[in-house]
């Protein structure tokens, strides 16, 4: 029955088509505000979900919070104010970008510190190995062995070292 109705509608639409066919309007009343809303929602974490933003989630709380964001944007609040609204009620957990605080200094500085540490270690390793004595020159037997192996390498059909 529904299929029949759909078919009829389609036929009607096609007949009415060229006259009625429109350039589709954006779903949102205000696309700029909608863009802002989605961008903000992407930055906020859904507390009842398994690590999803409130933009992606269909949980009740996520829907409610998205509505809050839309209302606040319509009321003229800035992004910072809306984010503050969320963190006042839910804490920093709701932010995907951890704010820089005393508790997160190590987090934000960590990579740079790791890099610094690594570079220092690297420098020390390079200096130390520059100090190690050069390997002793080959003895006669070793030279002969090397020559023999190289001859075999050069023979056709054998593999070449890169």
């Amino acid at each position, binding site marked *: 029955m529904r299929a029949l109705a759909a078919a009829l*509608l389609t036929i009607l639409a096609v007949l*009415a088509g060229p006259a009625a066919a429109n350039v*589709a309007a954006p779903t949102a009343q205000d696309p700029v505000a909608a863009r802002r809303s989605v961008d903000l929602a992407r930055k906020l974490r859904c507390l009842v979900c398994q690590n999803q933003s409130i933009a992606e989630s269909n949980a009740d709380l996520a829907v409610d919070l998205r509505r809050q964001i839309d209302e606040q944007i319509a009321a003229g609040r800035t992004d910072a104010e809306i984010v503050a609204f969320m963190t006042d009620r839910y804490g920093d957990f709701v932010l*995907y970008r951890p704010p820089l605080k005393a*508790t997160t200094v190590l*987090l934000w500085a960590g990579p740079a510190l790791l890099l610094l540490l690594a570079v220092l270690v690297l420098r020390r390793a390079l200096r130390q190995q520059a100090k190690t004595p050069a390997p002793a020159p080959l003895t006669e037997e*070793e030279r002969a062995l090397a020559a023999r192996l190289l001859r075999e390498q050069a023979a056709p059909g054998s593999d070449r070292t890169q």
Partner: protein
Amino acid sequence: MIPEVGQLALILALLLAVVQGTLPLIGAQRGIGAWMELSRPLAAGQFLFVAIAFLCLAWSFLANDFSVLNVASNSNSQLPAHYRVAATWGSHEGSMLLWVLMLSLWMQAVSIFSQSLPREMLARVLSVMGMVSVGFLLFLLLTSNPFERLAPPAADGNDLNPLLQDPGMVVHPPMLYMGYVGFSVAFAFAIAALLGGRLDATWARWSRPWTTAAWCFLTLGILIGSWWAYNELGWGGWWFWDPVENASFMPWLVGTALVHSLAVTEKRGAFKRWTVLLAICAFSLSLLGTFLVRSGVLTSVHAFATDPERGLFILVFLAVVIGGALMLFALRAPQVGGGGRFETVSRESFLLANNVLLIVAAGSVLLGTLYPLVLDALSGGQTKISVGPPYFEAVFVPLMSPMVFLMGVGPVARWKQATLPELWTLLRWAFAVSLVVAVLVPLAAGGGSWGLRLGLFLALWILAATMVSVRERIRNFRGAVRERLAMQPRAWWGMILAHLGVAVFIAGVTVVGTYETERDVRMAIGDTVEMGGHVFRFDGTTEATGPNYRAARGTVTVLRDGREVLTLHPEKRTYNASGMAMTEAAISTGVLGDLYVSLGEPIDASTWSVRVYHKPLVTWIWAGCVLMAFGGLLALSDRRYRLRSSQRQREAVATSPA
């Protein structure tokens, strides 16, 4: 009956693993030949029994045996056959069985393809892998038995989660686990070398193909997972820095460092201790990933149902395996000694810098992933934060950019000793051209972010610098260019392709990030929306039925210059067994980009909200990864790994100073 056979097979495999983990190892330490010889047949036996167990579970799924709890929880009689098989690894228990299957597969492969490996080394390698196998088989049998029965049997199952009913589910976990588990081979080789006290270029040569193979699989596994998320989730995102994704990315980063480090150890005998440590770290991160996904310690969409008891078991296992390996490293590393010398500017030093940056990147990802946990623990549960994509992107890009830049310089630098002026002379035109194009494109096409310019520069730089390295490489050969290129070993071609893959990847990420367009519109039948040079016309929806779902199936016709070129069918599905709703986007995949259409909500009988995306070059993201994996595969098939050592060469190696 069949589930019981499976369970018995697992117990037998465990018994074999216990023997395999002990006797050959002792045999190698004490020189008992007979015990060392046991390692091959034991590995074969383990593979046989684990395979039987796996097939028993897969059969239970295929045959809809709802007296097995796992089948009843994760499958359904209406589920198409290939998804029923995939559901075998759709749960925690089943995926652990897949893990063990992969482990036994790799063990068997090592057993078969190591004919020229000294007996002690093979015995040690297989023993270490056997010990890992013991841990996982115990874990399966004691806490996560996939063959648990359900009495009375369910009439029908709960169905596989609709999000998992996608071709990606068939391929992604096996590939991923092949990669994860494959690093156990490199790990075993490292432990074997530390135990035997012999750590030299030959050891690196043996390790290298196994590590490269594991890396290839992991690359493929991650890229398939990413592409699957993109197809499935309706938003067109492809990486979320989710803890479980990070758990797969960290071994990949360390694995990449390891592959390069092994190259240096093999060729120049340098970095020995560092390479061994990397091999231990790569597999440790695999194990850590297993812990993170299954213990409930972190929240993730990918996490399995959690149980603290299971988490504790894995953690103890982690402590024993990784702790033991690192302690062995601490004890034996001083004896292993340093390696070949090289100057501060040389190919070795560039590779070392590459390693450093990759490790720091992996460390940063680990820091970001675990920081919430650390803070939570230190504050007694009072401080909870989230670390998400903004952090990871802010940290990862600055770390990786210098590494990518060095990727252009390294292959051009000579081993042991190179000079900066020489490198500048070779690369200055590549640098200039990349810089100029990277600045011009945004001017011409619009979009002026620094991210765009950086990404373009790096991608072009790799391309140009790689071309320079190709030119330099064939310079000293004779013959036509084509002949000279054909003469180069596959391992070298593998490197070129893999590096070009990185360039393609970066180009894809940068372009789609800057130039993708999206429209969220309400469409009545006949309405159109224009985007990216295409016109999208909504032609209504019909009702459709799939094997285990009902759907509203939309028809969107794509026109170009007034001509119909394409019809897309996005769907809004409701699955019968679970009642779960899912949006199935319709994607037209192309070399130059994707058109992505997804149904939102119905507004009235014939009007829907529809999201339409144009994503230029998005396929390059995965094409680049495929190139990387293919490069690795090519390197694997290099002639020198096809063992044809003559008897004399073996003797020569045996008598040469270690």
